């Protein structure tokens, strides 16, 4: 819902909906992290230039993932948080979050996302090429 609101330009309502979702989610790792909602929200907020809101969501997500007990879910959550930091251009934070992923596959996926995002930041024209060839 928050993604839909943000995409239709209703930034304030989107921020409110996202905040409510973060608080009310019974199962944070499933509802916010594993569903891809976090990355969708960050992307949507960046699209409408609400960088502070995007950053706040990622910070909250990073704190919340400390409560995840299952090591596989936790590793996946760290990967997604790393990707979210990369979207924000917070490279050091992104690498640190990736390193917290216990699973090799999550770490490699996170590092790929970081390099990809960094390359796009340096050269936006690469976005299409990378999207075309990287599944």
């Amino acid at each position, binding site marked *: 819902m928050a993604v839909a609101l943000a995409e239709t330009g209703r930034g304030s309502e989107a921020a409110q909906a996202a905040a409510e979702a973060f608080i009310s989610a019974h199962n944070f790792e499933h509802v916010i992290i594993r569903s891809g909602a976090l990355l969708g929200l960050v992307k949507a907020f960046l699209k409408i230039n609400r960088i502070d809101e995007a950053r706040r969501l990622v910070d909250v997500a990073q704190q919340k993932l400390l409560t995840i007990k299952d090591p596989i879910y936790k590793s996946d959550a760290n990967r997604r948080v790393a990707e979210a930091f990369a979207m924000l251009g917070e490279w050091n934070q992104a690498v640190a979050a990736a390193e917290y992923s216990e699973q090799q596959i999550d770490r490699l996926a996170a590092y790929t996302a970081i390099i990809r995002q960094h390359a796009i930041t340096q050269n936006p024209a690469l976005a299409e*090429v990378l999207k075309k*060839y990287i599944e």
Partner: protein
Amino acid sequence: MTAIKRFCLLILAASIVGFSFWLNAVLRPVKPIIDPEPINRTIKLASQLTGSPDDQLIRNWLFTLVLTDRNDQAYEFASHTVSEIQRFHAFLHINDALMAVGKTSEAQRSLQQAEKASMSIISADEKFSADAVLLARKGEIDGAFNQVVQIADEVARSKSLSELCLFFIKTGNFDAAIRAAHSDPWDSTRLLFQTAAGLFEADQHERGKAIAKEAFDLALRVPGGGDDMLERFALIIVRAGLYSELLEAFHTLEKRDIYIANQPFESIAIGFAKSGNLDKALAVARGISKDAPINSYLNDGRACALASVSQVLREKGSNGKAEAVLTEAIDTALKIEFPVHRSWALHKIAPYSSRQEERRRLFARFVASELAIMSH
């Protein structure tokens, strides 16, 4: 005397300056060795993950390196990949990435590296498979097939033919792709459907239709009814103009209590709408979960199919009919009581609306549905 004194003072001053430089160099505090550049650190950390079991992830990583002009790091990663088969495939991924960006001469080097890596493959079947891939990439089609027929294990042979077929589709060699599909008794239906999809992509419509028809007939002859293939490739079958035949096949399967998902029926409805048979398109769309109560969650598929038909009508310029069908889709969605399914239908339908105000209203309804889910 004064000149000698001045000369001595000059020597002394120079010595003091030199000594202080030396002292400064010796006593300068040693800075901790840190890599200030997180991107270099990322590449360094990733280069240690050469034992990753996921080939798709390795492919993505190598493509990312090559596409961001880091070929050396890509080669280094590939050469350190632990498993010999993965190492071989890693070099092939580099080859694919280089070919994708048109660096054909550099791609030759990666193929040579792949060939070198294939030498260390121990399993005979894996070696035949690797040699077949290498020969295919060199354009030696017959040679590639000659390698595949030597694979003893049937499953491994089928896998190798599938790999060859997908490579030929990607490179536009459809004759070779069809040959690979026909050579694989286990998986020919899927490979033929995939070849048909490749032919449609390459704008070879007539040939695509013929291959899709062949695959469709094969799927119908599968003892279980071929429902999984028919559902998976419904879009290709519809694109080949076989929507009536597919609908009939689904009805036959349903009579045998085999469940068919909503999406393939939506594809069929779109096919009829595109061919200009609106009555049939609407009949198929309205037929989705037609026996369900008006407020049932099962009606989300019908709402979406109606919205897709309305979109086809709009694209054909029949705006009046498109509006009427879209209204029916929205009404169907709004009557769904179960919020998750109502939300999903509204979210799918909203972008089809041509009127901004209506789109906003639908998104508002969607938001209300989602809030209901959250408060629940």
